[in-house]
């Protein structure tokens, strides 16, 4: 139980750290801490496979993506510069609305009754029957349990994820690839070197 509170504090602290740093690299580090802590929390919730997934995919892929993009954007411009603040008075309304949302969420957490599912009301023993030590391939939350569900009852979501990923790849290539050659379709025009092409976003607004 102490472990839970330690993990909770680290989680919150790293989240706050993430959003409050000026340099995005520091934010990425904070995010890393957040994800790892979250993986630990998953393990305490008997979701060991998801804990690993969290580490591998989130920290291993997504965070790396962030790091690479930071590197890409930093080249040739210098330290990250931000323009003038065009919405200086957003602080109070933002905090207010977030506080309201938070307040009501906590309120419902504290007061909403969690009604057990009908099968548990009928048979309370089931509530703990499937739990077991981690590593056992037949208990709740293990790889085997997860895989069995993924490929039998939840097959459709699995296929859909494949589709989503493919769409993402195509989208990324289209969006972030070289400047689209449609403008020169049918005409053979040599592309200007990168430095002479027009900026996508005009410099001064």
């Amino acid at each position, binding site marked *: 139980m102490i472990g839970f509170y330690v993990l909770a504090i680290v989680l919150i602290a790293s*989240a706050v750290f993430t959003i409050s740093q000026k340099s995005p690299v520091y*934010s990425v580090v904070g995010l890393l801490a957040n994800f790892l802590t979250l993986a630990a929390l998953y393990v305490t919730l008997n979701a060991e496979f998801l804990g690993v997934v969290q580490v591998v*995919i989130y920290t291993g*892929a997504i965070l790396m993506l962030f790091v690479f993009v930071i590197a890409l*954007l930093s080249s040739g411009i210098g330290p990250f510069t931000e323009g003038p603040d065009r919405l200086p008075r957003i602080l109070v309304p933002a905090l207010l609305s977030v506080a309201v949302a938070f307040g009501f969420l906590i309120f419902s957490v*504290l007061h909403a009754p969690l009604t057990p599912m009908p099968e548990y009301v009928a048979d309370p023993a089931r509530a703990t029957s499937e739990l077991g030590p981690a590593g056992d391939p037949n208990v709740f939350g293990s790889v085997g349990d997860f895989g069995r569900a*993924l490929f039998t009852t939840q097959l459709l979501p699995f296929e859909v994820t494949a589709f989503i990923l493919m769409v993402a790849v195509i989208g990324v290539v289209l969006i972030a690839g070289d400047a689209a050659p449609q403008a020169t379709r049918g005409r053979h025009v040599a592309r200007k070197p990168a430095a002479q092409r027009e900026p996508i976003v005009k410099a001064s607004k």
Partner: protein
Amino acid sequence: MSVDIGDYVGLSAVMLCIGLAGVLLRRNPLIVLMSIELMFNAANLALVAFSREWVNNAGHIFVFLVVTVAAAEVAIGLAIVVSVFRRAQNVDVDEVASMRG
């Protein structure tokens, strides 16, 4: 067990709101995307907690989906950030306001 589900869900709520504040208050697009990731993870935490409470696999599958979608979304989001700010002077979300009425 003395840690009941309410604590986990409350924690999730806290993380969600922190992420929300980050989205609203930061002007660097990368930090905004990171805040969105925070919000995703808050949702994941809540899902896993409830999945454990009812001992039901579906929550885990849902988390899996969320992770996948989050990955895809981050990829595309970063691609957009890259293409928009590739040659910009400032990396500032407020600068892309050409859709103003």
